[in-house]
């Protein structure tokens, strides 16, 4: 008995019960569409975020105060970490020639207000090089002025959204605003940049680093970004930075991470998210599988006398098993194929509507869907098929 013949026979049974076939197909299709589109969304989010990071270049090092490793003692017992100061950053730039730019950053939050409009924003205290490192563009006005890092001028560069919320369509450059308790003058407005490194640059304000430190009422920087000449030097520079800090602080109390490390951990977090979403979607595929089993059980009991006849004609148990199993597999695989096509269409539609998110189902998800929908038919088809194969020919012929 050829598989092709069994397939043809199974297909005639499915065609005969169009409505039932259609309904159980829909179950599989929904499950597959869910898996394809949701994993595509997760994958799109992952790529969107990692692309954003990658666009910043991979030649950046981030220096953060505090040692991010256990040294055997409890936090506090070893003493609080020393500040990461502006002097430290200057020293790093001075002693390590491979460091192209060293950018100090002091983060805080504050209320900004202009006339009666206000909101809370993230305040980034930094230096003019921040613009180069982050590749920021200006919508209007100019960026923070060059000059002594210690000098905290009352000037501010505001994100696009902040400008829109405080000034509407009106010109913001040159206008006074309040940041925290401070009166400042707006130097410029950033062009739309979207989210970078977890910060939406449209919703921040930038001030000179000394101003930022004073506003945060701190002496320690939040971090420093170092741009290195060549990617090949990254590891060497990382070690040199730690050496410089040890020399100044007498202990290793900073953490230096590469852009790469941030990127890969973020990427793996989002990948887990995609997997979780895929798992949830897979549940609907399982439900669809149970639907198939149901349909096949009904099909077997409806066609009991047909099974009896096939047995009388000389079909073996294996052949009967194959007939019903292939019917289930045909059903689930057809559902998988239709679902894949439909899911693809959903993803295409999504990317057409939101081109910023490069949604596309990962290859593993497509492979898994094909495998799972085939496997679903097999798994949930076995019981009904086995039941058919085991029927006693005499009672089956009588339809019992």
């Amino acid at each position, binding site marked *: *008995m050829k598989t092709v013949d069994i397939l043809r026979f199974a297909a*005639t049974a499915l065609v005969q019960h169009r409505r039932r076939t259609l309904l159980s197909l829909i179950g599989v299709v929904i499950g597959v569409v869910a898996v394809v589109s949701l994993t595509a969304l997760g994958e799109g989010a992952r790529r969107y975020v990692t692309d954003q990071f990658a666009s910043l270049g991979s030649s950046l090092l981030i220096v953060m105060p505090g040692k991010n490793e256990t040294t055997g003692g409890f936090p506090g017992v070893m003493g609080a970490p020393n500040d990461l100061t502006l002097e430290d950053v200057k020293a790093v730039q001075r002693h390590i020639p491979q460091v192209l730019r060293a950018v100090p950053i002091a983060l805080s939050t504050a209320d900004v207000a202009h006339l009666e409009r206000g909101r809370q924003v993230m305040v980034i205290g930094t230096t003019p090089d921040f613009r180069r490192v982050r590749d920021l563009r200006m919508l209007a006005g100019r960026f923070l002025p060059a000059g002594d890092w210690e000098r905290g001028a009352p000037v501010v560069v505001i994100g696009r959204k902040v400008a829109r919320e405080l000034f509407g369509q009106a010109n913001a450059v040159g206008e006074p605003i309040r940041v925290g308790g401070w009166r400042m003058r707006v130097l410029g407005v950033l062009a739309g940049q979207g989210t970078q490194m977890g910060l939406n640059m449209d919703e921040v304000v930038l001030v000179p680093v000394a101003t930022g430190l004073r506003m945060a009422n701190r002496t320690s920087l939040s971090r420093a970004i170092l741009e290195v000449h060549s990617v090949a030097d990254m590891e060497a520079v990382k070690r040199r930075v730690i050496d410089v800090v040890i020399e100044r602080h007498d202990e290793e109390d900073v953490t230096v991470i590469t852009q790469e490390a941030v990127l890969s951990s973020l990427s793996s977090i989002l990948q887990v998210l995609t997997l979780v979403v895929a798992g949830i979607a897979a549940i609907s595929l399982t439900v669809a599988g149970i639907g198939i089993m149901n349909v096949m059980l009904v099909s077997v009991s409806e066609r009991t006398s*047909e099974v009896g006849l096939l047995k009388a004609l*000389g079909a073996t148990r294996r052949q009967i098993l194959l007939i019903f199993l292939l019917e289930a597999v045909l059903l689930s695989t057809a559902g998988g194929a239709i679902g894949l096509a439909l899911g693809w269409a959903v993803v295409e539609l999504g990317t057409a509507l939101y081109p910023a998110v490069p949604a596309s189902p990962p290859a593993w998800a497509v492979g898994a869907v094909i495998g799972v929908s085939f496997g679903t038919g097999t798994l949930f088809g076995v019981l009904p098929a086995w039941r058919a194969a085991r029927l006693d020919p005499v009672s089956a*012929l009588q339809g019992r």
Partner: protein
Amino acid sequence: MIHLEDVWRTYRMGDEELHALREVTEEIRDGEHVAIMGPSGSGKSTLLNIIGCLDRPTRGRYRLDGREVASLDPDELAEVRLHRIGFIFQSFHLVPRLSALDNVELPLIFAGMPPAERRKRGEEALDAVGLMPWAGHRPSELSGGQKQRVAIARATIMGPGLLLADEPTGNLDSRSGHQVLEMLSQLNANGKTLLVVTHDPSVARRADRVVVLRDGQIVRRVEGRSVSDLATLFAEDVPAP
């Protein structure tokens, strides 16, 4: 050659044992035409099922062409049914969604014959029962007589030596019933062993031999010329259908 020796078929109904067949000993030679008669519940169909290898005796021996059938496993029994036995049922048992030709070809599919050869054999078999013009029709588009002729084509397509017919004319009018019986007689004349279970004396009268069952036992055997007097002989055993 069919050889039954002290065959019993017992069903267990709770604590009771129900003997559908008891002490059946019978020999049917190749090429014979035998009718099995008896009131309903007398075990005719059970006997036919055992001879047709759909069922196995609870006790006793059944040899088909010298092979002990009781010892065969389900797949070997399927093999015997495929190659040696053709079934014809009262209710035709055609697969409703398949065309007449596809129905006839079913046993060839189980035998693993390639499609081209299958088609040729199927068409020959359908032509032999005069239904080639209806090859593409579904069973629902055929008359009762035509359905039974499709079933005969299907039963004979593997060239079995033994044809088993269970009330083959039970659902047919007398004209198409006659046609079907003629066809079966012709197959018997061409050398096939023919076993017909029937209520109908006019069907049984065509046989060389009649075996009468009652309560699972063979109560009478009629042979030769006496067969034609059957209606009068067994009026009390065989109620009119």
